């Protein structure tokens, strides 16, 4: 507690509550109708935006980090795998977008972990609003961050010579699918964020999940050269399906089977981890 606050932070004699002004506030008994699920989530999304406004540094992880990853893998593997970086980029870009966005989803769990520990969550949880609104709203704020990361990577890719045959529409559709999957996938980290005791443990558990999931897929290379057991894993990995679907959309020949596969896994993730998260949230 600050006992010696400098003059100006709370100048004495400025405030004395007057019963009249407070009385006018208290006398009001008009209560608006409770907000809809959407309005409540939107208010929490606005809170997430305000936090970005107050701490803009937190945007590094959705701008600088994806750029570094894209440049790094394009030039590291490009020559060896596809003859040139520019050539490799045509294969890599959809996958590296998926990888970057999914790696960033981990921050959602860390954010939730830090946030629910704060006293303000006690107040949120005593409000008569749609229960998942606080979590959904925070995630919607993060979805905007995912969108920024995906956009940044695509622009970097185009600058380096990526030319998607699907054109603007194809790229937008692919990014839309990636974001939809990231929204559902984030509930895994929200659950861990509510379950584990510290931000560090959320990070600790996310790395051993995220790295194999993103690397043991068709993001970087064609799985044909992999040993059979690994190919089997890659084939059932939902990330592989997401990358295949995104590649198809960006190339202008979206595969409806792959897209359905992705939307199906979104639904499963949402139902399983969304439900688990809400149970944990209500018990906190």
């Amino acid at each position, binding site marked *: 507690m600050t006992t010696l606050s400098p003059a100006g932070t709370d100048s004495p004699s400025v405030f004395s509550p007057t019963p009249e002004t407070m009385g006018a506030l208290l006398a009001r008994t008009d209560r*608006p109708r409770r907000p809809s699920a959407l309005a409540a989530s939107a208010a929490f999304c606005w809170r997430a935006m305000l936090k970005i406004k107050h701490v803009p540094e937190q945007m590094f992880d959705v701008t600088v980090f994806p750029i570094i990853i894209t440049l790094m893998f394009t030039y590291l593997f490009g020559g060896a795998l596809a003859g040139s970086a520019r050539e490799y980029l045509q294969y890599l870009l959809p996958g590296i977008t998926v990888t970057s966005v999914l790696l960033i989803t981990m921050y959602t769990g860390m954010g939730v972990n830090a946030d629910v520990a704060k006293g303000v969550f006690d107040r949120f949880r005593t409000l008569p609003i749609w229960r998942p609104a606080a979590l959904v709203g925070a995630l919607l704020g993060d979805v905007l961050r995912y969108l920024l990361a995906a956009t940044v990577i695509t622009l970097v890719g185009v600058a380096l010579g990526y030319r998607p045959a699907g054109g603007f529409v194809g790229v937008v559709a692919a990014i839309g699918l990636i974001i939809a999957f990231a929204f559902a996938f984030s509930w895994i980290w929200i659950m861990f964020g509510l379950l584990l005791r510290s931000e560090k443990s959320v990070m600790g558990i996310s790395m051993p999940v995220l790295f194999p999931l993103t690397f043991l897929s068709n993001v970087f290379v064609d799985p044909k050269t992999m040993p059979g057991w690994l190919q089997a894993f890659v084939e059932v990995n939902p990330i592989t399906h997401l990358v295949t679907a995104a590649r198809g959309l960006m190339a202008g020949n979206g595969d409806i089977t792959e897209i359905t596969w992705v939307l199906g896994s979104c639904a499963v993730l949402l139902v399983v981890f969304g439900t688990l998260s809400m149970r944990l949230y209500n018990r906190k």
Partner: protein
Amino acid sequence: MAGTSTAPAIEASGLIKLFGKNRAVDGLDLRVPAGTVYGVLGPNGAGKTTTVRMLATLTRPNGGQATVFGQDVVREADAVRSRVSLTGQYASVDEDLTGQENLVLLARLLGHRKSAARARADELLEAFGLTEAAGRQVKNYSGGMRRRLDIGASILNTPDLLFLDEPTTGLDPRSRNQVWDIVRTIVAHGTTVLLTTQYLDEADRLADRIAVIDHGRVIAEGTPGELKSSVGAGTVHLRLRDPDQRAKARHVLTSMLGAAVHPESDPTTLVARITVAGDDAATEQAARVLGELAVAGITVDNFSVGQPSLDEVFLALTDRTTGTQEVAA
């Protein structure tokens, strides 16, 4: 507004909350009449915050039941939430946002439209003397400002029941007085207030009734006056001219009043508890003490009879239970 129903603001019976093997709340009963300020008094770890959290629908009890204005805090949690507000022990406002953003956010979550939320926030900031600080992040507020914002956030919609969990802990005396004034104004408009505190002074000044809790149970309940008289009628404070006479004076007091005589650190003073109940009997007993001292040739410079402070009540009550586990009240 409160008073539309005849149900008490809070009625809890046999509330239990376990944290592992620790029985944080252990069969707690509480009845808070609507329109009053009810003080829940107890030391750290007595179960005050856990009790508030159960009543405010934040934590589910492991046993027992509680209703708020007749509605069950577990089965009808949503209905309870629409009638209560909570100002938690740790600032229940967002430190990263400005004061104004906090209030606008909460107003929107209560269903106010954007412009109405803004107007409501500005009115509150004005009424709580925070207009100048409206655009600053709450983390840069002083303790008193933070508390005011926190209470302001709790009356965005005038609640029927307001929980204040240790509202003045850590505040300087001036900020404490401000909070007390605010609480009185809120109560005057019909809101029931449940206040937890470690400060007997605070409970004494604000509360109509007080429950003293320790080890998760109510060990005494009543008006501040009733609690004081339950411990004895009061105390005699003596200051002697000659410190050498203290032992003799103590002997006189002990023989008249029993064992409850404490020498203070000042070598000339003595404090003794009056053992008879009732104001008249107490005055009479004090007068006889004074006469007896004069007979013994002891010169008394200062002699006063006072009601026991709630501190004395509290220590007497908690001592009693820590030793023997017996439960009064």
